[in-house]
């Protein structure tokens, strides 16, 4: 089962540059809504035809700080939802955590202002060609791309379970319409302020077993992705993870966002998470490689 699925999965997750970012456009997108939701800002943008080309897992890169900005780099945000309204109109939605200078600036923008965005960027989650049982695991704002994924999976007849974890209730992003798109939602918080006290990785093994999961999709902090990879390898289920490395360009030209990934030929290469990712096969990624290049990496 697993091998057969894996093949289908990469139909949307090709690694060849010529097909990636083919639909990326640089546009000025008007903010149509900006609501606070717990620790996050839910921001909707009018993006024209960009919405039609967006797949779950893609992200946008946003110019920050305005005209006289001292920030020279864009900021990456996963696309939470995209709505193609037809006739070249469309909307995308983001879930923004005010973290540092740039993301705080994005979160503070008012309705009617325009954001300079590039998108859709990066690989998308692979969609199985047959109805399978999927578990979606999100940490913090990592839940963002999972709701759109869930909708697509459901439309293909999949069963979709979801686990969302965060340090505290305020950092769980799970809007009503999102919840409706999954069959069952489990919540964990480190401080027990919502759902089960603990980490997502505490509940994932049981969920895989009890729901006979075929594939896990995950998005969240790197430590969480590593833990989920370990579990999915143990359980022998497929696992696609959306990774998050510090990005300078988001379009593949700077080589700052790399991480070591094992290829089909068994060779570890430093791949760009913006263009060969953010969605990658979890078991191919050499996790916990910050501050060192793994032994055996090509060109080390």
């Amino acid at each position, binding site marked *: 089962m697993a091998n057969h699925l894996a093949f289908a999965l990469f139909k949307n997750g090709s690694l060849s540059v010529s097909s990636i970012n083919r639909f990326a456009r640089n546009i000025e997108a008007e903010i149509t809504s900006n609501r606070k939701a717990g620790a996050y800002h839910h921001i909707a943008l009018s993006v024209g035809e960009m919405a039609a080309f967006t797949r779950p897992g893609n992200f946008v890169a946003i110019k920050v700080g305005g005209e006289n900005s001292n920030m*020279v780099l864009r900021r990456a945000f996963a696309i939470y939802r995209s709505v193609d309204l037809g006739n070249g109109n469309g909307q995308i939605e983001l879930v923004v955590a005010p973290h540092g200078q740039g993301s705080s600036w994005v979160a503070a923008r008012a309705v009617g202002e325009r954001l300079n965005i590039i998108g859709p960027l990066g690989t998308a989650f692979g969609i199985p060609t047959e109805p399978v049982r999927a578990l979606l695991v999100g940490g913090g704002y990592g839940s963002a791309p999972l709701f759109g994924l869930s909708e697509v999976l459901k439309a293909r007849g999949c069963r979709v379970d979801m686990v969302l974890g965060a340090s505290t209730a305020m950092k769980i992003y799970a809007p009503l319409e999102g919840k409706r798109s999954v069959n069952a939602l489990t919540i964990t918080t480190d401080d027990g302020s919502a759902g089960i006290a603990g980490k997502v990785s505490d509940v994932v093994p049981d969920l895989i077993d009890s729901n006979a999961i075929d594939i896990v999709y995950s998005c969240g902090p790197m430590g969480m992705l590593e833990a989920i990879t370990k579990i999915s390898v143990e359980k022998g289920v497929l696992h696609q993870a959306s990774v998050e490395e*510090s990005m300078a360009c988001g379009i593949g*030209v700077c*080589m*700052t966002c790399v991480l070591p990934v094992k290829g089909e030929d068994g060779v570890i290469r430093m791949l760009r998470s913006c263009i060969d990712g953010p969605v990658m096969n979890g078991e191919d990624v050499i996790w916990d*490689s910050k501050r060192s290049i793994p032994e055996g990496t090509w*060109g080390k």
Partner: protein
Amino acid sequence: MSSFDFTTSLGSAQFANPIFTASGCAGSGKELSQFFPLENLGAVVTKSIMLKPRSGRATPRMAETPSGMLNSIGLQGPGIDIFLENDIPWLVSQGATTVVSIAGESVEDYAILARRLRAVPGISALEVNISCPNVENRGQVFACDPVTARAAVESVRRNIGGELPIIAKLSPDVTDIAHIAAEVVSAGADGVALINTVLGMVIDTNTLRPKLAGKTGGLSGPAIRPVAVRAIYQVRSRLPHVSILGMGGVASGRDALELILAGANAVSVGTANFGNPLATMMVKSELEQLLQDKGFNSLREASGYAHRPEGNYDH
């Protein structure tokens, strides 16, 4: 209008316009080609290519800084063989004018790279990145010592033959950049590329350690533009007839004009591509307009114009 001459040259190489990508800031070219046709550039300057495949440095590799950024990519790349097999033919197929940047860890590396490139068609010039650690000299950067800077350039000159112009790319992290420029030119360089990044560091105030895995990194972006303009001006003063490919913090036509007035014959755009994939195209059209607005008939007329004696107010 239509009579404005935007062409330029570096050594014997001719370019349709003076706006290039900066080495290491345009991927393999393919990524940017999603946004505009590469043939519209004066030239694509490739990532510095080395003899062997290189994984580059560990992450984190970058930190944003006020009006700039630090990087420590560590010259990740596929090595000259794969580069010649894949990258060059692809660039040629796109009609891109191509400047190949090479980097070595020893004088011998530069020699071998030059020999490998000698007969390759479709290359307009070589940029010789000598801002790399010299493994034979305690990791001292070639460009930081006039003797090793000379040696690397001589080695390329001897092996490349007489055809391809050589542009030696210098580091600003030296006491006297005009002196280094004079040395590499006397060693056979047709021109110099000014400037590579400025050595910097950021400490992460959360982990309380250097932010980059490699500790130090190269500072680029608008923050360093005044350093680039100064270096270009100094070298142009010392070596009035040498070709200069300027770079450092250019993000608009106005910025490019500054480097050109200081003495650049062409201008590479680096970090600005990260914030704006169309940066080169914007710089190019703004620069062309500005030069005409100022009454210049050609780019060549403007190059080094800031050096004219006081009191001359033609423009």
